[in-house]
């Protein structure tokens, strides 16, 4: 087990550098004229252009810029954004609220998807099953760019159940509407996978055995069947974290949450390479760690799985 974790951690380092390199290269390719992006449509004066070009090494080649960035990164300096703020400070400001939002969304999605999925699986072909099928199809068909403003209009502006926007220091209640919106992006697939998995396991030999032993039906479903059915669902939740983070770009803009998604969008708009790479780096790390955790969870769920 220990050796397995160490091996995975070493792989992570490679993945991390690979990912940041790719993102840095993409941002470099996207870079037309960040100084112009900074001053809007007015002409940047020559001396402003000269001073900023030198300060941010904008006239250097790709590898030199990457080298400057990596050198800073390895000494713990993430650099400054084009508006002169420390990127490490921006990270510290933005991550907490996005993590809270994503966790809340994961919780909501998993709670709804697993319970509904299990019931749909047990009553396969029934009214409830077909009802959830219809609902998931609807959710899958609605992109978040439609869903988020719609939810804001209906639940915040018309019904006034929730505040229309939140801030960095949002309470869980204020985050609830954005989290539900965010959860809908992943809930449908999670629900379908749970249902299929439950249906499959209900016909497994060990379930028949458990029933034959005379166990209570409830115990058979919620312990024996569910536990085995959760393995693919948990994999999906790990992967969904990426979906949630990208979905956060839209959700955070609509609900005015100054988190990761907002900063990524801003970095791309202002052609601010270091800013985007800084946020993506942390995103990559979280993604890797969560997937390691997911793999380790397999062993907990299925004793047959052993890691060497």
């Amino acid at each position, binding site marked *: 087990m220990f050796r397995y974790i160490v091996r995975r951690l070493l792989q992570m380092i490679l993945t991390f550098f690979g990912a940041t390199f790719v993102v840095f290269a993409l941002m470099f390719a996207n870079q037309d004229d960040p100084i112009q*992006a900074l001053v809007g449509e007015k002409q940047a004066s020559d001396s*402003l252009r000269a*001073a900023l070009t030198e300060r941010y090494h904008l006239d250097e080649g790709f590898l030199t810029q990457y080298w400057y960035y990596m050198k800073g990164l390895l000494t713990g300096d993430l650099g400054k954004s084009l508006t002169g703020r420390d990127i490490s400070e921006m990270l510290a400001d933005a991550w907490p609220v996005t993590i809270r939002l994503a966790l809340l969304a994961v919780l909501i999605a998993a709670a709804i998807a697993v319970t509904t999925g299990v019931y749909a699986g047990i009553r396969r072909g029934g009214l409830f099953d077909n009802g959830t099928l219809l609902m998931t199809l609807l959710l899958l068909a609605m992109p978040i760019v439609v869903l988020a403003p719609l939810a804001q209009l209906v639940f915040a502006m018309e019904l006034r159940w929730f505040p*229309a926007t939140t801030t*960095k220091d949002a309470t869980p209640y204020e985050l*609830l509407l954005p989290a539900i919106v965010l959860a809908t992006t992943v809930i449908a697939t999670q629900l379908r996978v749970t249902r299929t998995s439950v249906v499959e396991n209900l016909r497994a030999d060990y379930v028949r055995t458990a029933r034959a032993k005379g166990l209570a039906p409830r115990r058979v479903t919620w*312990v024996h069947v569910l536990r085995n059915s959760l393995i693919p669902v948990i994999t999906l939740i790990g992967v969904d974290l990426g979906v949630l983070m990208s979905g956060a770009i839209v959700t955070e*803009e609509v609900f005015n949450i100054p988190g990761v998604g907002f900063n990524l969008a801003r970095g791309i*708009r202002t052609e601010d390479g270091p800013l985007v790479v800084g946020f993506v780096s942390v995103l990559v790390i979280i993604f890797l760690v969560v997937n390691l955790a997911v793999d380790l969870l397999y062993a907990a769920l299925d004793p047959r799985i052993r890691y060497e």
Partner: protein
Amino acid sequence: MPGIRPWKMAAGAAAISLLVAGCGGGDSDDASANSNTIVIGISEPEHLLPTNATDDSGSQVLSSLFYPLVEFNAQQEPVEVAAASITPDKANRVWTIKLKPGFTFHNGEPVTAQNYIDAWNYGAYGPNAQTGGYFFERIDGYADLNPLDPDKDGPQKPPAPKADTLSGLEKVNDLTFTVKLSAPFSSFKSVLGYSVFHPLPKAAFSKPGVIAEGFEDQIIGNGPFKLKGKWEHDNEVVVEKVSDFKGQVPKIDGITWKIYQDDQTQYADLVSGNVDVQMSIPIEALSKASADLGTRFQMSENSGFDFIGFPTYEKDFAKPEVRKAISMAINREEISDQIFLGSRVPAKSFVSPVVRGYRENICGEACEYNPKKAKDLYDKNGGPSEIKITYNVDGGHKAWVDATCNQIKASLGVNCTGSPEPKFSVLQQKARAHEPIGLIRLGWIMDYPLMENYLGPLYSTNGSSNHYGWSNSTFDQLIKQGSQAHTPQAAIKKWQQAEDILVQEMPVIPLRFMQNVYGYSEKVQNVQMDLFKKVDLYEIETIA
């Protein structure tokens, strides 16, 4: 009992989400509901250091924290505010600025002439890379602080500046200093209204010419409001009234500048009463704004100007008649009404109505929609059979460019297409390189209310925003003569003569003047916005 865990997990998750759903709401600060403070929506300012804050949000926040040297009256004439007097010498070259006594910064330091000199020197010094640095270029010594790159964007680095202070700034006594310009300019007083000319306290500098670390987040000004706490990036800037302010005292006790990423989101908050003033209501919300806000939905003129530039260096567009014909083929009123829902007004002059010397409808027949005459003129002068209008897609221009093209198509019977470029910087580079991108969509917002601030940058040969490459030496000469004229009135005469040349030559098609499109909540009244797109913070008040 490992088998119990998944069930427990599900139950726990459900319990947590229920708990989360049930709690909350109660701990938000309801104190602001009946206090004399207001919330105004902005976007994240790029900077708050005056010489670096040239964006709308930054300069709007600064208007609460600083007290300017001059303000503008209803006739767009500069009036002294923090200054006691601003007087030129006979040649309009050396300007003496006397400050009103008794003013202090928020940290208690008295405001002196030296504070202005220090701040301006910092702003003008090239390596400090202040976006508002170019405002100081009229002052003697600016060139020494901003040496030119010998090979422009090439591998050579620009040489180090010869000086680090402007030779044209001189302190006379604690409350008086003189500004020597590199060339006479009778309207210099109007330039001083912009936020880059604010003073900075001694506390701003850790050593001469170096801004102290973290000063920008805790900026100290000389205005009617002071910062409460810190600038909370991407969240809010809270300011509160200075208790014994010597200048004009505002009627409100404080402002929360709430930062929004998106105008539509801000509009949602305006309608639900979480924000008191929205300074620019997005075009998507315009159709329902009257219904949502009633009389609290307002428009007022500002300095924005939309136009289309001709590549006059191309043979196809070399004849003024062809250019006039295309202008006459466009129905400005229809586009203003249909696409901008009346939020922009048709432009038939080459400078904005907010500057002194503006003459209504100076463009005359050439800006009137007259498809028949346009076609005759176009055909007689052999206009091209293919017209292209290039625009940047990131600015929301597609709708009106396509509509304009359709009008040209219908009027002239030629093919017209809108050609998108991803960003304005790309459009500008291609235009400057004389690539065949056809007509280009351009816009302008003034820095100071003078005709010259439109004529100079937009149409003169070396104008910073003359991307379309028109050049006329008589025009350039008249602009210069106007700047050096003895009185502002004489200057306007010269500038109007210059505008007359534009009318004959038609190097651009004036399209629309922009407006402030704003709305406010039921909590506030007397909300006015000026030509600089700023809310008048001295007049606005809360309804008790």
